[in-house]
């Protein structure tokens, strides 16, 4: 038995302390405000909220739009998942990475991109007006539920392609062939073999999409206008616009309970969705399309999917250079450096870029440090503590950003305006991703390598430096990029926590969108395009260094 150095226990303690201070304590504060708004335990506040029709309207809208989004995402994503699972075609890795691109896009960017595509002065409307000589924009989607659903589908198609697609790719094609030889025609093969086998992974993917859409904030806030509010948006309105803290707290509580229920369901189904090794094919089963029908299916599906996934982003970039009547212009990018209002609270937008990068850098450092410590703690073999803590480290994933931000506001007292709260919130939100990126690499590290190094004369510190560090390098890069892009795009918590004089890029975009005039909209487009470029660079790095084993999420 090797003893663990006492200093290491201290290291293990740090992530737990962080979690206690920046996760459990704020949630506790929400709980307290909800049940004891004035220091005394009372249920009257809650009873009042529950009796208001608004509460039920919000709950109903949140649920049905999430369900509709999940359903539509499955409809759009399953054919793509099939194509990626069963066919080999040129550029496949790149195209697969592209399907994930929306998923790493900050919500503000996606929302802005959809205004640039189908908004009143969006690309599609301009084209349609020019084409049919229409006086007014024919597509009036902004402020309707349709644009919300569309954005949600855009966001989550990649999730379905990844989750269901990888399961499908591992499904033994002999099963379908066995059914065929036993007399099943193609339709019955699908209904009696393929479909039942895909159900668990499809349900799991659908549930995950449901969860993401259930806690959707930026998309609904920006695209839905005043008519539509999810729980998340309502928490924000109650807390910030109406300063009705007990109601916001109760809504947060409802949100937490529901998301945890969905998460629990998801983990149970997810476990069932993994196929035992012996039912997987020995070799890869994807092959090039052979007949004409297959070629049509593959190319048609890919073109349609790509058009849908790239159109909003391309429209965003295009409009950021062409908004207004002066043709191609860099005006909106130049404007980013100008402080139009000269007010003490409104900094030139360009400083937000610096702020965002600064915060993101901090999050990377802090996140990697705490994430590595957590991963080492969780990767300890045969540790009951590790088994117990594993789900605890995933909890922040099920807690919405706005709830978290709100929790900080009510919990942090005098520090609620501290500049430090934003990076702390980002670190907490990124932590599950960082830990999940590191954990498989760490678990896969053969302990005999360390023993071999020790036998060869390396001290514990040098063992770590010469064995662990080089082998964990690519996982650490993936983790760092996750932390960086998550921080850069984080909107919900930041909107609540950021000080007016220290805004990040998403916050500036949101402000610019809220102000009238072409110039402000142009600035939002320009800033969103910058943010999009950084996020896209992030996914490239992740794809480059991602080991297959890393995708535990």
């Amino acid at each position, binding site marked *: 038995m090797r003893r663990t150095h006492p200093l290491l226990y201290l290291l293990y303690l740090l992530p737990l302390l962080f979690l206690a201070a920046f996760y459990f304590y704020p949630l506790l504060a929400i709980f307290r405000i909800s049940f004891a708004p004035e220091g005394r335990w009372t249920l009257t506040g809650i009873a009042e909220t529950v009796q208001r029709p608004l509460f039920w309207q919000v709950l109903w809208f949140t649920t049905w739009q999430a369900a509709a989004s999940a359903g539509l995402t499955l409809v759009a994503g399953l054919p793509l998942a099939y194509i990626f699972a069963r066919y080999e075609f040129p550029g496949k890795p790149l195209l697969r990475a592209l399907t994930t691109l929306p998923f790493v896009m900050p919500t503000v960017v996606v929302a802005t991109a959809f205004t640039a595509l189908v908004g009143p002065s969006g690309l599609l409307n301009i084209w349609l007006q020019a084409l049919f000589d229409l006086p007014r924009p024919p597509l009036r989607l902004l402020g309707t539920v349709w644009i919300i659903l569309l954005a949600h589908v855009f966001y989550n198609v990649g999730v379905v392609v990844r989750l269901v697609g990888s399961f499908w790719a591992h499904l033994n094609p002999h099963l379908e062939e066995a059914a065929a030889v*036993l007399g099943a025609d193609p339709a019955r093969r699908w209904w009696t073999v393929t479909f039942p086998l895909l159900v668990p992974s499809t349900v799991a993917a659908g549930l995950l999409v449901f969860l993401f859409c259930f806690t959707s904030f930026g998309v609904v806030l920006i695209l839905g206008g005043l008519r539509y509010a999810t729980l998340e948006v309502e928490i924000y309105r109650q807390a910030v616009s109406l300063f009705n803290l007990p109601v916001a707290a109760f809504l947060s509580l409802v949100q937490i309970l529901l998301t945890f229920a969905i998460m629990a369901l998801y983990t149970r189904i997810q476990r069932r969705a993994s196929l*035992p090794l012996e039912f997987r*094919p020995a070799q890869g089963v994807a092959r090039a399309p052979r007949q004409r029908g297959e070629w049509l299916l593959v190319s048609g599906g890919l073109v349609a999917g790509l058009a849908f996934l790239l159109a909003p982003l391309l429209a965003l970039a295009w409009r950021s250079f062409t908004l207004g009547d002066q043709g191609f212009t860099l005006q909106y990018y130049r404007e980013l450096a100008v402080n139009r209002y000269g007010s003490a609270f409104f900094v030139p937008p360009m400083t937000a870029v610096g702020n965002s990068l600064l915060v993101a850098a901090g999050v990377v450092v802090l996140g990697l440090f705490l994430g590595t410590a957590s991963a080492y703690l969780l990767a300890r073999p045969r540790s009951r503590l590790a088994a117990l803590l594993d789900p605890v480290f995933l909890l922040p994933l099920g807690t919405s950003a706005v709830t978290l931000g709100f929790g900080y506001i009510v919990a942090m007292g005098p520090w609620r305006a501290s500049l430090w709260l934003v990076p702390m919130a980002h670190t907490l939100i990124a932590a599950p991703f960082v830990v999940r990126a590191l954990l498989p690499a760490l678990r896969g590290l053969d302990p005999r390598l360390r023993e071999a190094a020790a036998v060869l004369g390396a001290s514990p510190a040098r063992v770590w430096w010469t064995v662990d560090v080089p082998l964990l390098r690519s996982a650490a890069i993936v983790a760092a990029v996750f932390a960086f892009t998550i921080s850069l795009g984080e909107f919900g918590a930041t909107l609540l926590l950021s000080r007016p004089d220290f805004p990040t890029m998403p916050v500036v975009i949101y402000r610019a969108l809220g102000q009238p005039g072409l110039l402000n909209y142009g600035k939002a487009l320009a800033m969103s395009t910058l943010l999009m470029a950084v996020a896209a660079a992030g996914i490239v790095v992740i794809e480059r260094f991602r080991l297959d084993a890393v995708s535990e999420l």
Partner: protein
Amino acid sequence: MALLRVRGLRKSFGSQPVLRGVSLDVEAGELVCLLGPSGCGKTTFLRVVAGLEEPDGGTLHFGSQDLAQVPVHRRRFGLMFQDFALFPHLNVYDNVAYGLRMAGWKEAAVRGRVAEMLALVNLEGYAGRTVFELSGGERQRVALARSLAPSPRLLMLDEPLGSLDRTLRERLMVELRAILKEVGVTALYVTHDQQEAFAVADRIAVMHRGEFVQIGTPEAVYARPATPFVARFLGLNNLVPARVPSEHPRQALTPLGTFRLPESAHPGEGLLLIRPEVDPEHLGQEGEAGAIWGRVAALSFRGSDYHMELEVHGEGGQDYRLAFILPTHLGRRGGAWPLQVGTRVRLGIHTDQLVFLEGPTPGGTAG
């Protein structure tokens, strides 16, 4: 007329030809083994016959039916996959019942047939088990029961014992033949293991690079391999370059000396196959076909026999290493085991040990 008639079947994957115009007849109730190394095209042959792959050319007939226009699910054939491909979401009962339901059987009839099939493969009482609760051997039997349940007109088995371990395989190959013969099904059986093919088949079709190189009964194929490839594939590696002179068609001239052939051969260049089984009587004697002189280079005890490698000096300075099998009782009979590594020995060769394989001789066997 044969039940299954395959003529000139061709299939390529991309530019890679996998079947180069192969023909095969299978009689009703016959059990034919396709034997060959991995990648020789035997599985593709099976898949084309099953209808899972489209042939590029050639014809397939079953009885009087042309199979070209019959899709896989209407052929009423059975196919057992190497990985068994049991449906993981169905239990044993529903797996076996699958084909019956597709054929539209009434549920009561299904119940009876499934019970009958499970009894046939000795799995009574397993109906309610999930696939995960079965051992490898049990899975193999469920897969067999599932393939046999709808009474296929032709059963194909793709390496049905390939994913099982050696001892289990040896037990099951005998059992498998017994079951197939009991049912009386016509079967095509793919394997790369010659022992399995010998144990199971009525006839063996040896496949090499997309062609059948020899078709015959197991005994005939083993006794008279048609080509050096077949000989080597069956583990007969004592091949020596040889020439049969036209004036003495029953003689083979080799670097190891001249040997008398069991019968007249076609004169020309070729390889002489010397079978490894040594009659103990011939150790140290002159055989009726000739003899070889050599030094024992390696000797290993295998239980019932010894494997001996003999290093033989050939004309022209090349050394040949030949492998022989000597029964262990040889030592008991003479008191002490007569051979050791380094011993020089004369080995008499019998005519029934020799097969002359015509054709150009790339290399032969050396060292």
